[in-house]
């Protein structure tokens, strides 16, 4: 047992730190720290900075322009990015679709799409969930019917994150309505400029626009945009979801969030003393920090095993549940720390300008983030679905 990083890993961490110190624009890190949106331009700027360094695709093989980092290196990179308040890498092209094309795509698809993901020419979004297919994703009903050398797509996707910025969408569609649910699904790549696609915003409870509905009416998609084989899409979808669940623990987010709560608790006064000195608040803070310390080590145990070539099993479901619980608890502490300053609806703060507000530093986005991050235990396979997976695997055969 050795809980410390090796000398090589420490050297790599220093390299990442130096890069972030030199290259991360302060307007972006300020926005991330304060919980403001950085918009399409901000994401694209950060992606191009990472791409210039060759660090935009940590999990891709070198042959496709990736870093080919192992699990420990990826973890160090993510942890340092969170600590520096770097914007997250928008995952849809890089983390989700890229690996699917690399494993199941045609040569032509790989040659065409992968470089355009890195360059930012294509902004991808994910067409998985539907109004009637959430936790039960395999019940999706968007239809694709073959017509000559095209598929004709009709249906509706929902919860399409940042779909308002995207020019391509990867979709699960039903190509065989008579097959068993999971066997009639195909994986299609669709140009969002195709006639018949309409993107409608969904405004979330904190006033933000980050998700959308995407409607398809007689959308003609060339058959060469089918990934792999027809009716085998569920296999690819599941492969993608295992990649969606990397960094599922969100240790870096929790650590940054905890630091922010501590700063706030030192500023906010409670009975004439800093809130941080209140025994009740200090106890809440300590409790979540204790949970985070253990969860961070669970995360490292799994990363270390993955770096040694073991595929993670139910552990990633466990990390999803515990990781999101901890992040939500930290969001809850932040709103508590803000006192009455959690009440204002600082929508200006979310989009940039908060000059009109008399809020103490670090309080303007706390309740918006608390409400917004209730999504963490709902999306990416709800925590209930994760518990089903854990129970099925561990309890299977006994009941």
């Amino acid at each position, binding site marked *: 047992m050795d809980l410390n990083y090796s000398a090589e890993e420490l050297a790599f961490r220093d390299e990442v730190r130096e890069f972030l110190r030199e290259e991360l624009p302060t307007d972006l890190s300020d926005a991330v720290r304060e919980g403001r949106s950085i918009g399409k331009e901000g994401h694209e700027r950060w992606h191009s900075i990472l791409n210039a360094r060759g660090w935009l695709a940590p999990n891709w093989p070198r042959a496709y322009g990736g870093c080919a980092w192992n699990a420990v290196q990826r973890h160090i990179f993510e942890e340092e990015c969170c600590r520096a308040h770097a914007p997250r890498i928008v995952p849809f092209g890089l983390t989700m679709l890229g690996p699917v094309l690399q494993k199941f795509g045609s040569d032509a698809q790989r040659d065409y799409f992968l470089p355009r993901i890195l360059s930012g020419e294509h902004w991808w979004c994910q067409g998985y969930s539907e109004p009637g297919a959430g936790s039960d994703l395999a019940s999706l009903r968007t239809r694709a019917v073959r017509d000559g050398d095209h598929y004709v797509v009709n249906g509706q996707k929902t919860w399409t994150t940042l779909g308002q910025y995207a020019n391509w969408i990867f979709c699960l569609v039903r190509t065989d309505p008579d097959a068993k649910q999971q066997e009639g699904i195909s994986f299609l790549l669709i140009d969002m400029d195709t006639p018949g696609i309409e993107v409608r915003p969904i*405004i979330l409870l904190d006033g933000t626009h980050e998700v959308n509905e995407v409607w398809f009416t007689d959308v003609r998609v060339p058959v060469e945009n089918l990934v792999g084989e027809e009716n085998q899409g569920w296999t690819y979808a599941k492969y993608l979801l295992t990649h969606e669940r990397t960094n599922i623990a969100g240790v870096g987010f929790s650590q940054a969030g905890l630091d922010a709560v501590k700063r706030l608790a030192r500023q906010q006064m409670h009975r004439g003393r800093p809130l941080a000195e209140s025994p009740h608040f200090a106890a809440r803070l300590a409790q979540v920090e204790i949970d985070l310390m253990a969860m961070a080590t669970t995360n490292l145990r799994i990363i270390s095993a993955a770096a040694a070539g073991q595929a993670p099993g139910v552990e990633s479901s466990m990390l999803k549940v515990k990781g999101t619980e901890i992040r939500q608890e930290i969001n809850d502490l932040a709103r508590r720390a803000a006192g009455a300053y959690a009440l204002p609806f600082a929508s200006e703060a979310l989009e940039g300008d908060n000059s009109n507000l*008399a809020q103490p530093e670090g309080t303007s986005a706390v309740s918006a983030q608390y409400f917004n991050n209730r999504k963490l235990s709902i999306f990416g396979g709800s925590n209930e679905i994760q518990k089903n997976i854990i129970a099925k695997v561990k309890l299977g055969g006994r009941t």
Partner: protein
Amino acid sequence: MNFQLSEERQMMQDSLRRFLADRYSAAQRDESVSNAIGFAPQIWAQLADLGILGALLPEDVGGYGGKGFDLSTVFEELGRAGVVEPVLDTAVLCGTLLASDPQGKGAALIEGLIAGNVQLAFAHGEVNSRYERLWVETRASAYGDDIVLIGRKSVIVNAAGADHLIVSARESGDTDDREGLSLFLVDTKAEGLQMRSSALMAGGCAAEIDFDNLRIPSSARIGPAGGASEMIEAALAAAEVALAAETLGAMETATQLTMDYLGTRQQFGRPIGSFQALQHRVADMLIELEQARSAVINAAGHLEEQPAVRDRHIAAARNLIARAGRKIAEEAIQLHGGIAMTAEYELAHFAKRIILAEHRFGDADTQLERFIDLSAA
């Protein structure tokens, strides 16, 4: 022992519930929220016509209620319907302050208030006060027959829509002394008053207010000079009973919406409410809801007791409702799934109301500390 509402209160509850079911749709709430002052004047007028404002004030000032159970009956209904109109601030907080002035200076304002013609806000909280009840740094200094106010008030709910503020300020003593506090009635359009208002996450508005040498006649003082602490504590006690009941009402609606949704939402070929794991969680919500209901009854039933007894029961109720409310709001969102994250679906408003109620007058920890202090006394 009798846990039935009196006949008068039952009638009030029925008529208010009918009115709100008819008139206070989600669309009406959106309209109220989107107004720059955070409420709809026509709804306010109708609440006054129904006698709701008068029911919150005692008979000796022209009202016809003002007891703990009057407050809890009215506010449970307002919370159930998600009413954002500032009944709590104008009628309960400020109405109670005015009604408790031994000289009766507020009589004309109360008459206007009950008729629905007056809006008020209690300018009490400050940047460093957090939830302390008597923490006031704003100073009031006498210059001949005038008083000059200097200081800043923070997150003052309903200030933007108010005709007058009731301002707490210190005429003597240290920041958190019981003695030395006074209350002043100030026109919101007075010179030397600066206000920056912002909308609130759960509806309504609040403002930061600066008093830059604001000069008022000493006749603007309400209550005894330097002796307003008990009036302030009594008004906050009434407001906390009202807010506890309002939160209970919102928790009822959040639970109801969740049960209805579990019965209709289909996944894996059946209603999700047929899954036992989710059924148990709804059962937990219902258990917490009954705890909250009893906590409100305890608080309302002790509002007329002596301050230490009153405040101990109120601290208990608000601590319990903060905990039960968080559980119900978070579970309601989680059991719904994605749809509960949308602004359009009605649960969003109720969840925000429940959670953010904790940020007025004291969160769970503050109420716990009060309860411990009052239990030791």
